[in-house]
């Protein structure tokens, strides 16, 4: 395997050495452990950056014949010459890069939001397999239904980025007996007005993954405003719950690794990669400190998860 590193300045050399060593180690370890296992099926992970969580994920994948490329340190041409059976891209940046350079390869995109997936797919006019990192808004609504009997008025803010979820919200809301009040963001400066309006007229607010609405600049305003209005905010990710949202259904690393391992097995057996979809496994994160402070009695995580799974099953069968 030839890996070409392209850098503008000489200051990067120590990093080159580090990555070269890392890649070699991965390749060697992969060869050692799987020499007699999955024949010669090779996976190439293309990571968007070198954050710890990506490495943690790769370690949870059972198939050990693999190499890892960091998208920041190779050119598109590298991919064309690369001998691999499956590209697993980690993050949207890596997916874009692989889509640019290897049009006919097997590709499974991970750690990518549905919004980014649709953007990339549209840009390259090609569908590819993916497990979205976000969870469907309908599942977040089912979590709300699992946790609260009396809270039925749900406020949701949307912008152009998340508008596509409106039909799903309305349909799931109707199905679950929840009243969904949607406010559309007319301009970025109106977010605090929208949140206040939703807080005044609803029992809780469901946050959706939408960088126009929920970002590091708005997080303080949104969490403080909803908290002081005594209105719980249902987050869309685990970090948002840790920041101060009440709860969320989210895809954990274990959830994602479990489904990825299943898919890899299928591909090795010769089956095609499935269509892009949300992760079928999920977890729940609760913020007990916020719940206590808002005098909300939440059931245990395990009880809620069980209730949510039942609701999901019922939904699948209907």
């Amino acid at each position, binding site marked *: 395997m030839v890996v070409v590193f392209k850098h503008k300045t000489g200051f990067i050399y120590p990093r080159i050495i580090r990555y070269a060593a890392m890649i070699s180690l991965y390749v060697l370890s992969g060869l050692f452990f799987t020499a007699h296992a999955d024949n010669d099926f090779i996976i190439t992970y293309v990571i968007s950056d070198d954050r710890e969580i990506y490495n943690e994920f790769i370690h949870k994948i059972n198939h050990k014949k693999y190499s890892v490329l960091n998208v920041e340190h190779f050119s598109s041409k590298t991919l064309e010459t690369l001998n691999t059976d499956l590209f697993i891209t980690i*993050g949207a940046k890596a997916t874009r890069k692989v889509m640019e350079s290897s049009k006919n390869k097997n590709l499974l995109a991970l750690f990518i*939001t549905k919004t980014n997936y649709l953007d990339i797919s549209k840009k390259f006019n090609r569908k590819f397999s993916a497990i979205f990192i976000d969870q469907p808004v309908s599942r977040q609504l089912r979590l709300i239904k699992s946790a609260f009997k009396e809270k039925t008025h749900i406020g949701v803010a949307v912008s152009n980025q998340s508008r596509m979820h409106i039909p799903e919200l309305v349909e799931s809301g109707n199905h679950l007996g929840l009243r969904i009040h949607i406010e559309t963001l007319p301009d970025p400066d109106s977010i605090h007005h929208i949140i206040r309006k939703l807080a005044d007229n609803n029992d809780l607010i469901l946050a959706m993954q939408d960088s126009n609405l929920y970002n*590091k*600049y708005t*997080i303080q305003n949104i969490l403080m405003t909803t908290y002081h209005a005594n209105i719980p905010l249902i987050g869309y990710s685990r970090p948002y719950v840790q920041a101060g949202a009440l709860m969320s259904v989210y895809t954990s690393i274990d959830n994602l690794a479990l489904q990825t391992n299943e898919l890899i097995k299928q591909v090795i057996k010769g089956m095609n990669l499935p269509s892009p979809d949300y992760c079928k496994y999920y977890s729940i994160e609760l913020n007990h*400190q916020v719940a206590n402070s808002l005098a909300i009695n939440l059931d245990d995580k395990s009880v809620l998860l069980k209730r949510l799974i039942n609701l999901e099953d019922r939904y699948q069968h209907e």
Partner: protein
Amino acid sequence: MNFVLQKKYLIQLILACFCFIHTSFILASSLEDDFTGDMPIILSATRLAQPQNEAPVATTIIDRKMIEAMGVTEIPEIFRMVPGFQVAFSDGTIPVVTYHGLSDEYARRMQILIDGRSVYTPMFGGPEWADLPLAIEDIERIEVIRGPNAVTYGANSFQAVINIITRSAAEEYGHTAKFIKGSKDTNHTFYRYGFQHENINTRISFRHQDDHGTKLDFGDPAKKFIGDSKMVNMFTLRSDIQIDNKNSFEVHLGGTDSWMEKGTGDHSYRNFHKKHSQRHYQLLRWRNISSTNSETTIQFFHNFNKTDDTWLSKDLTPIGLAGKYLLRSEDTIDQRIDLEGQHIVNFNKNNRLVFGASIRKDSVESYPFFTTNKKFNNYIYRVFGNSENKFGNLLINTGMMIENNSITDTDISPRIALNYHVNKKHTLRTSISRAYRNPVVFEEFGDHRYVTTDGSTTNFNIWASGGLRPESILSKEIGYIFQDTENGLFLDAKLFRDSIKNIITFADDRVPPAEDNYPIDLLAEDIKNLNWAKVEGIETQVKYTPDKKNYLIANYAYINAQSDNVSLDDENYLSRSVPKHSFSLFLSHNFGNNFSSSLSYFKVNGMSYLGSGGPVKNYNRVDMRLAYDKRRGNSNIKTELFVHNMLGHQYYDYEEAAEHVRQIFVKFTLKF
């Protein structure tokens, strides 16, 4: 160090912090970062209100919504809605807020904090409510801890603590303008601008307030003519800065400049005059939240209060000094500098530890009150810790504060509280705590004399012998909390007994030195640890919010006080300073169609304030508010009508001269 220099350094320090913080914030941009990256923990332990059924002592929380619905024009009026509290106006410029009585114009047995900054003045104790640099419009929430809480809030958290939390700068964007006009020629103008610049949220508030006081509201000027008009100009700024995902920084600045009319028409040496006060503060707070389980806070603040109040008396013939005058003065300067560090560790879901330390320097200068130009400094060192441990349904709070100060040396304030959750709705609580109130600088070193302008006559008015010990309180309570969140019902009841010892009292028994040649007062007032008091009773509060449109609060307190402090006419002064029964009721209803209304009712039994206060008869009062709130797009116009003392019963709550009559106010609020 002179104050101009000090201010200059502080401004430089704050600007430097801004520059450093502003350039160090880096934003992540990928959508996936929302799932795989970190986010700043916004609702951390110090920003979250403690659940009332887990608090170690009875707590009342008054939120912004309720403050707005009450239709009050001044901050002290809010506390009428706290069981066991008394609110009075010595005159239009001296509001008095006290818990379980035992107070004169300065309620010294209660700590008051604004965003963690103690505004308990080192000179006389208590806060200066009338021109406190705090706009009622900026208050987010008030937590009233009805019991000692030195472990959490420091020295002088004796009978109660008022913890005022202002609105985060990240919550108020855009322009807000408010105007109040009404009785007593009241004019309030408030303007606030809140904005965000990248990682910095800032709000700036200005407030102007003036009124002519109570003097024109009743008809017998010879008897009741008092000067209590006031004009207060205020400025406050708060910046909340998110440095990165783990670190945040707060800057709080503010000040007031006020003119108040003082004196009475029929008094020879408390004759009409004007008092000018300037107050300002700076608070810097750094917060590091490395995880949901670990939070460190370091804060520094500085308070500065200066009062210029010098006037010439009338001819002193009525007090036996014909043709003589006094050059009266109540000029004072006091300052507080405080540095505090605190760390919170959540070992797991059931065990939490809070500990910290602080250093404080209080400085007081006042020739008129000490008869010296000397600056009195009081250094206070404090270490504190509190642990919360859950064992199933039982929560145990144990804490202790050790404090050393220059006046009374070292005190140890321990507390233990048990909260037992019978089930999700019912909680039983019991606690026992000891706390201390240290003498304020005037009580220890006061030397207040009257000297005629020709120097011929001197009178030692107050001449403190010093050597005071701290007042101590042993507080025991048993509480019951019912909390039904699904139906919006909350009830809190507590049975309590407070034993207070070494109460610092004025004693008219000190033989003045030979230069006291005023022929009438033979003895000077000394200040001593003289009395004890036992205050016991029951307090209840009920909150009912069945839906978003209706709100009901009812409070009742029965308090019985006993003391060895007996006056000449056999009335027990300290025990009379507490009303036996007090009741308050608050109803709020939103009619829809943008109209809402609220009604408040207060009933207080007779009592008698200490010091300048006189006997107060039973009184009751009804306040009403009607509001019309119109939203259009992102702007909001609200028109409100307040009628205070709607039934028009004339009453006084401190002394006869300051009578309350019906008052009507109109308020306009514009937000855009």
